[in-house]
């Protein structure tokens, strides 16, 4: 049986970042993912924002992880060729009550160390966002909120994990495990392994993994569904910054934001649901998001919809992160990582490494150069020799698709291929390119696009 220093269960943003951190610090890591590819649970559907933590609970672990994650990400992004769109955000008040809440939002941001926030007037709002509805009363400007590529960083971290000699097993659902006082023996659908420590980053199944292996948990996952609508790239020019609502007690609310890919995104909804695996979109909520988007940005009325999607956030009965170290059984649970997980992932990873005493960076690994998918930077089709453009809406080349299907960490399923290249994610959603993609991916993805005749 293969032996590792640590097994990280779950390859969402938290699990991948944690596995990377431990691997860079010299531990031999096994990252176990039950899906056919990484990022296939909660992480496949987020709003792709890099938050400053201006509105996070003061003094919280969540705030600390967000700010550490933010700092590390902005430090390493350029070296890995990862794009950052420095949009800034505004928390816009549309009603009297919301306007009354702005000063406290400003003060809270300052208490959280986000010093460059300031109040702006409707005139200033209109100067920054001329297309925004003139009903905006006032806003808090947060210059440090950015838009990022939500997946490429983690594909890069996966490459780093593999480069250190650590392993990633996909289609490896943990089905049993036993701790003998020294080691965990884990049984998965892809084989068995032995690890000194376990980090549970199982996201929507975090409480179940706790229960399955430890026999106890201190939280219950209450999945919260978020639906999103992506507008056509023609709408991209209508908005330059992130428009945040004044949050209520339960959620950050519906955000209107540019995406790094040149579209405009509205979402998420916040719907309590029982189901942990079915992220369904619904007509009523999609229509509500469309109406909301048009109310905020009237020029969206005539803009086509490019995509709709839904994700499930691993919320719990508690507002705060549920990170718990059980030294007696070499165990860490990282649970209840909700909307802020993308930003906080690198900070959470450091926190877990500290809990486990993993030490300082020991494995020098070259920064992998990630293919750029951001609209505002140079793309693959702009350099000769790409073969053919397979997906015309997103300008994805055959060279990019072939690269995503080969190398040390190829795409596992069609979703994984889409996240790595953006193929079929544009306005026609595959009308023009599904045939060619099916041909290029034959026998390479699970499940295959084709059924066997």
């Amino acid at each position: 049986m293969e032996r590792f220093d640590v097994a990280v269960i779950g390859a969402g943003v938290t699990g991948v970042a944690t596995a990377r951190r431990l691997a860079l610090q010299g531990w031999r890591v096994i990252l176990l993912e039950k899906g056919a590819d990484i990022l296939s649970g909660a992480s496949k559907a987020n709003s792709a924002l890099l938050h400053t933590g201006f509105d996070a609970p003061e003094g919280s672990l969540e705030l600390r992880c967000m700010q550490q994650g933010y700092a590390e990400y902005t430090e390493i992004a350029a070296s890995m060729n990862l794009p950052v769109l420095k949009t800034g955000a505004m928390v816009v008040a549309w009603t009297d009550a919301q306007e009354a809440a702005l000063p406290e939002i400003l003060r809270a941001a300052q208490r959280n160390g986000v010093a460059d926030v300031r109040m702006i007037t409707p005139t200033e709002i209109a100067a920054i966002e001329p297309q925004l509805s003139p009903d905006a009363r006032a806003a808090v400007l947060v210059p440090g909120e950015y838009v990022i590529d939500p997946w490429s960083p983690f594909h890069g971290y996966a490459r780093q994990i593999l480069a250190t000699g650590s392993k990633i097993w996909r289609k490896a659902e943990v089905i049993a495990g036993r701790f003998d006082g020294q080691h965990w023996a884990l049984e998965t659908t892809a084989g068995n392994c032995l690890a000194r420590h376990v980090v549970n980053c199982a996201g929507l199944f975090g409480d179940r993994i706790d229960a399955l292996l430890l026999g106890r948990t201190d939280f219950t996952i209450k999945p919260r569904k978020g639906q999103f609508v992506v507008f056509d790239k023609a709408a991209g020019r209508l908005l330059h910054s992130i428009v945040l609502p004044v949050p209520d007690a339960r959620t950050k609310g519906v955000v209107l934001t540019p995406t790094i890919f040149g579209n405009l995104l509205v979402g998420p909804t916040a719907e309590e649901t029982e189901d942990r695996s079915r992220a369904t979109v619904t007509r009523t909520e999609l229509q509500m998001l469309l109406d909301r988007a048009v109310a905020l940005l009237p020029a969206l009325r005539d803009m086509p919809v490019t995509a709709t999607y839904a994700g499930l956030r691993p919320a719990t009965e508690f507002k705060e992160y549920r990170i718990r170290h059980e030294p007696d059984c070499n165990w860490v649970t990282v649970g209840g990582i909700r909307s802020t997980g993308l930003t906080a992932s690198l900070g959470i990873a450091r926190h877990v490494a500290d809990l486990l005493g993993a030490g300082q960076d020991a494995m020098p690994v070259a920064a992998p150069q990630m293919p750029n998918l951001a609209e505002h930077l140079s793309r693959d089709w702009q350099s000769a020799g790409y073969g053919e453009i397979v997906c015309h809406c997103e300008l994805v080349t055959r060279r990019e698709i072939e690269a995503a299907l080969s190398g040390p960490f190829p795409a596992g399923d069609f979703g994984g291929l889409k996240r790595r290249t953006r193929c079929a994610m544009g306005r026609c959603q595959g009308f023009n390119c599904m045939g060619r993609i099916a041909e290029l991916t034959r026998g390479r993805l699970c499940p295959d696009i084709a059924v066997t005749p």
Partner: protein
Amino acid sequence: MIQVLIIGAGPAGLGAAAVLAQAGAQVTVVERQSQAGGVPRLCGHSPFGMREFHRLMTGQTYTHRLIAEAVAAGARILPDHAVTAIESGPTVRVATPQGEITLTPDRILLATGAREASRAERLLPGERPLGIVTTGALQDLWFARKVLPFRRPVILGSELVAMSAILTCRQAGARPLAVIESSDRPVLPAPLCWLPKVLGIPMLCTTRIEDIVAKDGRLCQLVLRNAAGHVTQIDCDGLVLTGSFRPESGLARLCGLEIDPATGGPVVDQSGRTSRPEIFAAGNLLRGIETAGRCWAEGRAVAQALLADLPPAVLEISVRAGQGVRYVMPQRLTPDARVALPALQIRLDRRARGTLTLTDAAGRRLASFQTASAPERRLTISLADLRLQDAVGPLTLAMEQD
């Protein structure tokens, strides 16, 4: 010699290329796909070619004929050439596998065609598994590549193209389980609905998709709801999204052309001229869907208007869709333009019987007639019959139901 760049090598673009090249223009047709021909190249079935060549052809034979005519006339056709920007000048940026090139034509004809609405555009509920494709994608998968994405699909929509989807399924060895249609009867006129009947495929009207259920990444069940609120499940492994064609207007939007929200395509006058005077448009980019033959004829007619090269219009009257009308095109009328689009092309937004009236801003009736029509049924008003000299814009076309 006038240099014309045609963007899109489907029936409209190829038809225009032949006319322009014959007239002595230097014609380049760029096509982003690896093969010229547009949608008909993927149709392994008839009928094509009646209007153009007076005989019945399959889509592929028809495509070869259109390409041959354009090339014989002297047009240059460049597949794998994708236009990424049309800057002022016009300067056109084109991505090619050998690197980006720049073209500087005198005139541009946009003929980028149409496509079926995606799952997102239809706001379909449910999960997002494999097995959901449009008819266009299905034809590409099967006819061009012999890839089958499902075995037991459900067909969504009942326009003519749904019959094409059924035929393609049958040829590929897939068995459609049902046709579902949200309105109370098929969009296709009753006599043309024989195909599903003969094949024993139930046509479920007033039925909507309530949920899409996935298992292991593949579609496994559709939950349907009818008008009475009755919910049924169909175990199936695919869904073909048919019809609801919309203009492929990404490039038109990108280069800043005025877009008509009703058609989803560029606003044009009756010569096919867009809001940028050096750019013309023809074919299904203008309005969703018409037959290949009509697009071909339209491409040729707009080509003639483009050749006449009249100065951009000064006086224009806009036409807009009012009550009960889904769209009307052309959207601008120029009394002295060269006529390429000889009639107002109209679609209603619902099945209706009543009076269709074109009124000007001063309340004068320019045309008014009794009609009965349905969505996707062709309706026209000849421009020659309209007295535009005294009309005050904008004109409004409205349907008053009996």
